[in-house]
């Protein structure tokens, strides 16, 4: 079933929509949650909550890309879980991702504006557009899909440390781009 038909089922309030979404995108959502949280039970719960949240948001929302829409919900639910449970549990995937993202945070020396996530995403999208296709794909696969550095290294046919170095350069490049815009978080 294609995405348009699945979205039509949501609009018709047909519960088959959830089953179809789960069948088509269950593995995709689970992979993101697992990459980010690294705890099986919590990833399962996030994916279940994703179906509920999607049911609540469509309608009225009409997603342009159902896949990206679901991915965002999983990511948001994953970080919510991380925020609420961080005192009790250690989520390795998220800890590593956040520590790496610390390299992208612009310095506060040259501040012109303090931005929110929505505005920040505009700047990040602009920066991603300026990158070569492979660098753009690598950054998104690491920090949006949460793919492991070693997996990406194997996909590119290079070693893990070389990939880690490449990621470091990308993060520094993003920080430089945000600094240039005078953006602060």
């Amino acid at each position: 079933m294609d995405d348009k038909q699945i979205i039509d089922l949501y609009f018709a309030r047909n519960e088959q929509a959830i089953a179809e979404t789960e069948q088509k995108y269950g593995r995709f959502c689970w992979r993101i949650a697992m990459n980010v949280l690294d705890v099986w039970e919590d990833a399962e719960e996030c994916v279940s909550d994703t179906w509920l949240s999607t049911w609540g948001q469509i309608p009225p929302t009409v997603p342009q890309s159902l896949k990206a829409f679901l991915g965002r919900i999983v990511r948001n639910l994953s970080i919510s879980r991380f925020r609420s449970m961080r005192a009790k549990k250690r989520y390795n995937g998220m800890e590593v991702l956040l520590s790496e993202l610390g390299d992208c945070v612009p310095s506060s020396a040259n501040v012109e504006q303090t931005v929110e996530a929505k505005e920040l995403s505009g700047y990040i999208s602009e920066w991603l557009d300026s990158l070569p296709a492979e660098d753009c794909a690598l950054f998104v696969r690491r920090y949006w899909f949460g793919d492991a550095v070693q997996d990406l290294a194997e996909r590119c046919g290079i070693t893990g440390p070389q990939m880690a170095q490449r990621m470091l350069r990308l993060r520094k490049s993003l920080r430089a781009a945000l600094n240039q815009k005078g953006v602060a978080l």
Partner: protein
Amino acid sequence: MKEELMYDGITEIREDIIERAEVYAFPGEAENAEGPKGLTKKARKVHPVWVTIAVVAACLVLVVASPFVYIATRRAGSEAPATNPGQSLHGNKRPGDAETGKENPGDKAPETSVASADVWIYFVQDGEVCKERYRMNLQAEVVFDRWRAENGIGEEVQLLECEIRSKAITEQQGKVGFHTSGYDFSMYLTVSKNLESYYEQKDEVLLLDSLKQTMTGYSGLTYQEYHLILE
């Protein structure tokens, strides 16, 4: 937290970028792609059978011979005057050894015959791990000293211990020694903790990788495990 805001910012990036990244075919995938379902599988290099047999035979000889060499060197060490009591087969100092002052690493343990060979020394340069071949004694400390010099690390960083464990068992029954070979080798490398002060200057991951490749590569053994201990 700023990192979390960055995470949220990345979550909201444009959908077309996400879709492009999802379908992007990396060069390694194209080379390694196999099978009708488009599943990617890493191409595996197949060695001829004789190479495998030769490697296993060489390892067996090394394992069987090592206790005899050890006993012989110990005996020679105890008979010869002015020996270096703290030096093991691999030339590493044990904690508590007397300081002998600065000396050329290549001159250590002159009273024992230590094989010398070409050794690959790995080092970090321009953001990547490079390697250079040097002829030197096959002693852990000598190899470590060269690695340290190649990476611009000061002499305050010391190799404290280099222990190779295997499941080999040597038993003495009367005048005869019986040896059961072990195949699973593990290297336990203990280095002084001040190595951490170079993590800023050199990339930590690359630096530790170069150390691992250097120290596990010089002996010709294949290690199942490698443990770095900073003390």
